[in-house]
């Protein structure tokens, strides 16, 4: 990386005045975040390692047991172990969140790059289009999409992805424009490099670098939205071990068995918090590295 590029990155970090020394030591909060994330990743890749039981094993005699040493998170209406089900649901929920974020980022990059690179008329058009999409905040765009294509896991993923795309597109466009007019691009132009080379070697890498942070921050949001859709009965359906669906199924028994809805929700919150915390600490380190 040239000095110009480093300088440009620092100048991109607008508004941040926090005094964090470069390569700051890992704080207690960051350590906890990393530990929880590691647990969630293990649960997603190899659920049997942390929860050996069968998530669908029915045991009617031990239905509705409160959390105890045998059943850490209690049991549900069919005597299934809630902890096992929550752990086995991790893969579903994380996959849904990651897929939705990938779709959102994909569309965002496409729209943002088109707007940022293809001249003023295209930029104006794409911008108006994004403004229209912004008038459908949160789940509204997702609900409109589900109205058209019907409920289900796949539509929920695409719906959440599409609702996050306008936000990404706007950030990418802004980033592209600020990188395009920065000093190192001018320097490259003065050196006589071709336009294509400037775009491929200088502009795009610097535009896309912050996407990793955006994506990490976005996965938490996507998981929350996708499980909200499941909760509303428009995503994954109840027998599936998906957090939103489990929470929705547990709502019927809220007065007698609070653990049915409490623990799946807790995992959603933990995942979202971890994604946000990791995204933010990477962002800080990149800015000050």
């Amino acid at each position, binding site marked *: 990386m040239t000095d110009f590029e480093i300088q440009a990155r620092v100048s991109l970090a607008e*508004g*941040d*005045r*926090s005094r964090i020394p470069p390569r700051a030591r890992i704080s207690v*909060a960051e350590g906890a975040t990393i530990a929880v994330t590691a647990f969630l990743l293990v649960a997603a890749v190899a659920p049997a390692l942390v929860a050996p039981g069968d998530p669908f094993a029915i045991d009617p005699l031990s239905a509705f047991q409160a959390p105890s040493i045998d059943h850490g998170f209690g049991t549900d209406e069919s005597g299934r172990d809630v902890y096992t089900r929550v752990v086995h649901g991790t893969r579903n929920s994380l996959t849904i969140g990651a897929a939705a974020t990938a779709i959102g980022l994909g569309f965002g990059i496409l729209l943002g790059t088109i707007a940022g690179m293809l001249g003023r008329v295209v930029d104006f058009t794409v911008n*108006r289009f994004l*403004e*229209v999409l*912004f*008038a*459908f*905040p*949160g*789940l*509204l765009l997702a*609900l*409109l999409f*589900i*109205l*058209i294509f019907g*409920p289900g896991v796949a539509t929920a993923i695409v719906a959440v992805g599409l609702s996050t795309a306008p936000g990404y597109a706007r950030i990418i466009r802004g980033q592209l424009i600020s990188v395009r007019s920065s000093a190192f691009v001018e320097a490259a132009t003065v050196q006589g490099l071709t336009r294509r080379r400037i775009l491929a070697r200088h502009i795009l890498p610097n535009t896309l670098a912050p996407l990793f942070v955006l994506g990490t921050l976005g996965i*938490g949001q996507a998981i*929350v939205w996708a*499980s*909200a859709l499941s*909760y*509303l*009965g*428009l995503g994954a359906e109840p027998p599936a071990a998906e957090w*939103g669906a489990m*929470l*929705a199924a547990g*709502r019927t028994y*809220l*007065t007698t068995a*609070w653990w049915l*809805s*409490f623990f799946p*929700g*807790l995992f*959603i*919150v933990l995942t*979202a*918090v971890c994604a*946000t*915390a990791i995204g*933010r600490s990477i962002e800080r380190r990149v800015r000050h590295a």
Partner: protein
Amino acid sequence: MLWAVATLTFFAVRLIPGDPAEAILGGPGSQTSPEALAAVRAEYGLDQPVLVQYLQQLLRLATGDLGRSYALNTDVAPLVLEQLGGTLTLAALALAVGWVLALALATWSTRRGTVARAIGSGLEIVAAALPHFWLATALILLFSIWLGVLPPISTASPAGLVLPVLTLAIPLAGFLGQIMREALFTALESPFVLSARARGESERGVIWIHALRHAALPAISLSGWAFASLVSGAVVVETVFARPGLGRTLLNAVTVRDVPVVVGVVLVAALAYMAMTLVTDFASRIADPRLRAS
């Protein structure tokens, strides 16, 4: 802008597979006679060419007519208007409470050492990550079932509003608080704060009179978007608390694919977003004299 939203929704709805006339008569499974289908097509104007239908829809929208519901057999406009009040009350109260919480947290935790700052920003991150449906469940559990002080179902009484408003306000406060804290931090390091301190202004005065005006600006301009996303949050909250309103109407309409109702609610939400953008522009001008000068 509203035209663009209407156009987008009109053509998006055309993508729905299946015959809308069949949907009106009870979905693809129902045994409908060709005469009944033709009658429904004529009644809803579905036998016209697409362009004519589009122009007719725009004309009707311009006169405030949102069409007729497929499932409820009533006009959409009065239905939406009837539900609008409850949702607007909910969203407005949530916005107000969210602002108060965010302000309290941001002003409390700045200038109180690194521990307070870490607690403040930790609380904000957790609050912003709380899904409405889980927070609502947890609040019902705590206040209605264990403590028994507030009703789990949102009635017209003020007590019934407390839990839904809190459910919407807490994540919003986390979101606004993060933005406010960052802006407050920047403002407190700028020269005008140094000069205020040099004049002997108290710490409280520096924060509340000088720095906060700057810190509030980004949060004000995001409030328009936040308000509109509260309407989307109302979908979940109204369902959980069995509270009548736009959100629940929207969810029911999506579930039975009642197209005119969905389009009507979405248009009203978009209108609310635009109205709020105007309000926040105005509020920014009040808070920031530099905008007035230009």
